[in-house]
């Protein structure tokens, strides 16, 4: 189901850089005396998305919705249980590791955990060149210096160790490392959520500038709906392993169709007391069900105020609501 393709193709008239088709990821739960598989965690249950050159696709959802797992499956850091991921039209399942890592990179959430504390920044940033271009460390001094400048640091920083940098600077180093191989796609998993707002803004601006200059595609995974609105071109909303709504960001934020999207947006506090007072907030009752035994039909129905019998029996497919932007799809029997 390459649902988003036609719509975006119409707009960009190019093939997607990366597309995921019906990706499923299940984790076994072991138990009992013999450690047999007694259950499965359905982390991602048939998600299809694609992203184009120069485009940012934001993926939002709450803890446990499968957004991070999906990001990792896309980069083959986790093996998909089913489905396939294509990079420039080629199936990544059979792609050599080196080629995959050269074309698709990742920036992690925690800039403290994702840099080796025993390597200088110069060493960290030369590694991509050593691995992918077979160069020697001495030969890439200029490249590393240039990289550091690109992300707003100084070439003199190369001899320092990660602990000498602040969180924001480390995240810049993480971004520089991803850039070193000149990838087509970067998966960013909560890249700014560990940073204070005043620092976060600088990193967001950096990501936007780099995309303008180099044209790579971003898969921007985050729980912060404000940041996602700011940086994304299109947004996908995930709930309990499913993509419940996807579309251009103005559609998703101004005309959300899925009740979950609606509730999610209404829950985000706005830094403006007057607007806060006037807002109608939909406070969802209950909690997200366990992904070990997700509800039948629509997975959101247990918390949905519009749920009917149909929602229990039939899983709603992603479709366009009549009159909407053709790129705006929602998986709901009773869209807003």
């Amino acid at each position, binding site marked *: 189901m390459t649902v988003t393709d036609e719509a975006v193709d119409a707009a960009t008239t190019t093939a997607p850089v990366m597309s995921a088709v019906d990706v499923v990821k299940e984790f076994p739960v072991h138990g009992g005396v013999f450690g047999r598989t007694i259950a499965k965690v359905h982390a991602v249950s048939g998600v299809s998305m694609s992203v184009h050159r120069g485009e940012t696709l934001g993926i939002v959802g*709450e*803890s446990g919705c499968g957004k991070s797992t999906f990001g990792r499956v896309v980069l083959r850091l986790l093996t998909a249980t089913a489905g396939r991921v294509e990079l420039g039209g080629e199936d990544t399942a059979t792609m050599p590791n080196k080629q995959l890592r050269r074309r698709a990179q990742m920036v992690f959430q925690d800039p403290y955990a994702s840099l080796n504390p025993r390597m200088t920044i110069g060493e960290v940033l030369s590694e991509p060149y050593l691995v992918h271009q077979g160069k020697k460390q001495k030969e890439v001094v200029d490249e590393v210096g240039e990289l550091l400048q690109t992300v707003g640091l100084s070439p003199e920083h190369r001899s320092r160790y990660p602990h000498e940098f*602040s969180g*924001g600077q480390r995240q810049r180093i993480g971004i520089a490392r991803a850039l070193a191989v000149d990838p087509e796609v970067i998966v960013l998993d909560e890249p700014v959520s560990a940073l*204070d*707002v*005043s*620092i*976060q*803004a*600088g990193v*967001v*601006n950096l990501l*936007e500038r780099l995309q303008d200059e180099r044209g790579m595609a971003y898969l921007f995974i985050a*729980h912060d*709906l*404000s*940041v996602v*609105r*700011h*940086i994304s071109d299109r947004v996908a909303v995930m709930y309990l392993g499913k993509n419940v709504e996807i579309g251009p*960001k*103005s559609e998703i*934020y101004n005309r959300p169709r899925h009740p979950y999207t609606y*509730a*999610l*947006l*209404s*829950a*985000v*506090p*706005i*830094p*403006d*007391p*007057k*607007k*806060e007072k006037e807002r109608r*907030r939909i*406070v*969802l*009752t209950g*909690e*997200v069900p366990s992904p070990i035994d997700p509800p039948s039909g629509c997975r959101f129905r247990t918390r949905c105020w519009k749920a009917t019998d149909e929602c229990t029996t039939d899983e709603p497919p992603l479709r366009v609501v009549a009159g909407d932007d053709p790129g705006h799809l929602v998986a709901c029997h009773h869209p807003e």
Partner: protein
Amino acid sequence: MSTSQRLLQIEDLTVGFKTEDGLVQAVRGVDLSIDDGDVLAVVGESGSGKSVTALSVLGLHPQNRTTMGGRIMWQGENLIGAPEDRLRRVRGGEIAMIFQDPLTALNPVYSVGRQIIEMLQAHREMSRQAAKARAVEMLGLVGIPQPARRVDNFPHEFSGGMRQRAMIAMALACDPKLVIADEPTTALDVTVQAQVLELLVDITREHGAAVMLITHDLGVVAGMANKVAVMYAGRVVEDATSEELFDAPTHPYTVGLLRSLPRVDSDGGEQLIPIGGQPPSMLNPPAGCAFHPRCPIARSESGCDSQIPPLHESEQVTVVTGTRLGSGSDDSGHGAACWRRDETDSLLGVRA
């Protein structure tokens, strides 16, 4: 400002931590006050001293490594230097605390109910049975389904949102006059955050308790607080009512925070404007206004790098140069610790 007794009045609080590298000046002269029924938000980024200020109220800092100065007047009684058994009465009984991470704040080997009962028995002369009935009542009040059954559950059997509800139940069980909530929803998802914040506001209002809300999220502030204090580098740099703060932010740091914030109610056509530089090291904070190295309008002539600006103009005793003819607009109670507070309007225009 009224002269009547404040519920809580913090005056010139200083807190320092002794470390191998020297004294970390986490709080450097904080003034805050809370009256009955107030929801005061203390906002700031990591390291601004907001949590340290909150923990000071309850005397929760390790005594051997901490130096404290100033006064923390709780209903007229100074809690700094108060005897430990008096502080024990205050903690939980008169001032309750809700921590960020309920999983670490709850004891994993006791049932949730037992922890509430323990608290009730410590502060109120109550039979075990009456305490248990009260625990069930409180759990029901915070929206835990089947409270009579859930009361015997252990913390790991609760979800994150339910644990934080249980913490709120525990905090309010003894009818405290003040609840200090330190980032109570930071660990929660946004839809659960909305539930918990709504509960916290409603239930504290019903119980007539004031709230001191420590947060980094300006959105949460706008929705909940009636008063706001913005902290930077161990000092309050701006205090105002919630409306005033968002309508007319006056300290360049507050303005900077608001401009660097992406908004969920805007498509983000305009660029975010980050605050340049890094927060200072509290081992050796900058002289004068601690924000001056990052401030776009700081000037040596105004004293920004040499003298600490007062929060309210009435406190201003030294006129640095002739250029400061002051707006004298202190009647509103809107304070901004900035030598150039009349010039911050120029910063605001950029986004508006």
